[in-house]
């Protein structure tokens, strides 16, 4: 009760304060200069995201705990916050051309991106169940609005509504689980819960844990709580889908890992079973259900379900190596996703965005560079060496094998073989089918994103040290 906060103590909170202040400033700019300021606001929102990422890196190293343990800044949080900010900024860069082409300029778009990202940062830093819930709601509420932001289109409205109703349900489950955990341990803080569960679990706590996991699994769209993903991905405006696939997944995985590792180290056996099941189910469903898809956004939805399954393999291991695997996986996943969506957003004919996989036919002859980069990204998503996606899978499987989860690793490898089928199918369509009509010229910003993402994917094997080193340090800070 007698904690005195000084401005200096708030320094670790600076990225969040900047982001919140920036979002409100952008809203003010938009509100006073009207709809025509949309491009300015969205552009400045990117600048704010990048500046915040810069501040994040310049913060003094070490672990900071603020507000009685509710807000934790450690190397783990820094790594994932940086990744989230990059994901958000990338998705916003992808949005600019789209919004102009579709006449969807709204200044609230950028502000909602910022507020949602703020929620993600708060989620990543959450040190207790209340901060977790508040961060999650701030993130999700802005996402629901963004999903429905093309309000004159039935599909977009439907996506927003579906996401909102199911998201509210999952929040309810998460809260129920949180209240059970609080009831059985007498505290909401992760470290407190860890102390209370050090001697083992009682049945009520396991119930709470299961409900908490239901909420997390919904947010990362892991099977069996993935039903919303294909519909929401298909219906939302495409750059918003790119945002969904990149940033919120990172934040949700971050809190999933933090909550499990920090709060429940005493009952590893109990949560490990759940994570293993969810992981296997997601990998298998993501691989098989994607095969029949015709729409590339739906395909990306199933692909992301599968990828979340692979990332959870690292968590299932429950070791520092496993967490490091998850971090590397998420970093490479964000890079691959943004690149792929840069291509999806440039599939435009006669001013209309097309979304069918068959529209990509013969891309190698009409747009050779684009086809090459997309092929590399798809090989990477499938996990074929020496591309980045292979290393992502390699580290999580390695951790699983070291932790003795041979079964999980074998099923994972098999699932990724099945998954390779549909990625290779697209490459076959691009390279060997009769060309369809050419797309319009790819906008410069999309080229930039695709180029960066492609280079990261191609050259990761040559210089993996920075990412691996940062991920190792970040993972160690949790244990």
């Amino acid at each position: 009760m007698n904690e005195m906060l000084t401005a200096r103590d708030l320094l670790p909170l600076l990225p969040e304060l900047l982001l919140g202040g920036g979002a409100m400033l952008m809203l003010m700019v938009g509100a006073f200069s009207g709809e025509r300021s949309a491009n300015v606001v969205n552009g400045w929102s990117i600048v704010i995201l990048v500046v915040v990422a810069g501040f994040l890196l310049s913060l003094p190293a070490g672990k900071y705990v603020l507000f009685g343990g509710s807000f934790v800044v450690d190397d783990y949080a820094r790594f994932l916050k940086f990744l989230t900010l990059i994901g958000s900024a990338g998705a916003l860069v992808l949005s600019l051309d789209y919004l102009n082409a579709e006449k969807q300029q709204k200044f609230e778009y950028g502000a909602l991106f910022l507020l949602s990202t703020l929620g993600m940062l708060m989620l990543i830093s959450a040190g207790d169940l209340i901060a977790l819930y508040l961060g999650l709601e701030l993130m999700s509420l802005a996402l629901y609005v963004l999903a429905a932001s093309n309000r004159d289109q039935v599909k977009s409205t439907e996506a927003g509504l579906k996401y909102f109703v199911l998201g509210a349900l999952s929040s309810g489950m998460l809260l129920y689980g949180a209240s059970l955990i609080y009831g059985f341990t007498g505290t909401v803080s992760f470290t407190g819960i860890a102390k209370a569960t050090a001697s083992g679990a009682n049945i009520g706590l396991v119930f709470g844990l299961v409900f908490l996991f239901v909420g997390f699994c919904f947010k990362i769209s892991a099977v069996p709580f993935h039903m919303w993903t294909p519909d929401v991905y298909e219906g939302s405006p495409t750059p918003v889908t790119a945002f969904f696939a990149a940033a919120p997944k990172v934040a949700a995985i971050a809190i999933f890992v933090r909550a499990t590792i920090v709060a429940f180290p005493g009952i590893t056996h109990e949560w490990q079973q759940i994570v293993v099941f969810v992981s296997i189910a997601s990998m298998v469903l993501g691989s098989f259900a994607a095969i029949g898809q015709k729409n590339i956004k739906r395909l990306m939805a199933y692909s992301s379900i599968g990828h979340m399954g692979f990332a959870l393999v690292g968590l299932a291991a429950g070791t520092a190596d496993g967490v490091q695997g998850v971090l590397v996986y998420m970093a490479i996943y964000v890079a691959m996703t943004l690149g792929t969506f840069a291509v999806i957003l440039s599939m435009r004919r006669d001013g209309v965005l097309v979304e069918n996989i068959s529209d990509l036919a013969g891309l190698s002859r009409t747009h050779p560079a684009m086809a090459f980069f997309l092929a590399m990204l798809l090989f990477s998503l499938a996990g074929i060496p020496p591309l980045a996606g292979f290393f992502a899978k390699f580290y999580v499987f390695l951790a699983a094998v070291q932790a003795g989860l041979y079964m999980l690793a074998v099923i994972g490898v098999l699932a990724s073989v099945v998954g390779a089928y549909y990625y290779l199918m697209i490459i076959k369509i691009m390279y060997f089918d009769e060309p369809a009509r050419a797309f319009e010229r790819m906008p410069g910003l999309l080229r930039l994103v695709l180029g960066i993402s492609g280079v990261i994917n191609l050259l990761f094997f040559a210089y993996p040290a920075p990412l691996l080193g940062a991920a190792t340090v970040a993972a160690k800070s949790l244990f």
Partner: protein
Amino acid sequence: MIAALFFYLFAGICVASAFMVIAARNPVHSVLYLILAFVNASGLFVMMGAEFLAMILIVVYVGAVAVLFLFVVMMLDVDFASLKQGVLQYLPIGLLIGGIFLAELVLVVGTWAIVPSVTAAITAPIPTNMPNTEALGLVLYTRYVYFFQAAGLILLVAMVGAIVLTLRHKERVKRQDIPTQNARTPAMSIEVVKVRTGQGLGSNL
């Protein structure tokens, strides 16, 4: 003695008006009974020493929620008579759910009474030497300022979201224009019309 008297007064009116909420034929009366129930419940809270909760109940529930209900009831033309038609049909299932709730309440209160040690599980003790408004005030903007601000941001997003999704700039909507309003004179807005007996205004306007 006097406390018991007031307890029975508040509790009695509360239960009776709660019953009237579902029994009243006119939905507006239902809402008014609901307000009465809230006010009495807040009286009960005051007697228990939870004065902050009592004030919040008045401010939030009576001041905002009930008034919102009243607006909805008055603005939407809901035919409550037809809504109430299946009451007898659904009575058994309603009684069943009511019975389950009652049983759960008894279980919760029963645990409290049978095992008083459960209160020991509370890690943050309730301060006894100060009124609870003061106790809340001491922590709300210090220990819990982060949560407070986060909740504020969530409400901001909710407001922005509602505006983004519903506000449309229509061309033909009449908007308030304060300078024009202030510049109006009686001569511009009042017209004296001679109304002929038995013919009304219709033909003159």
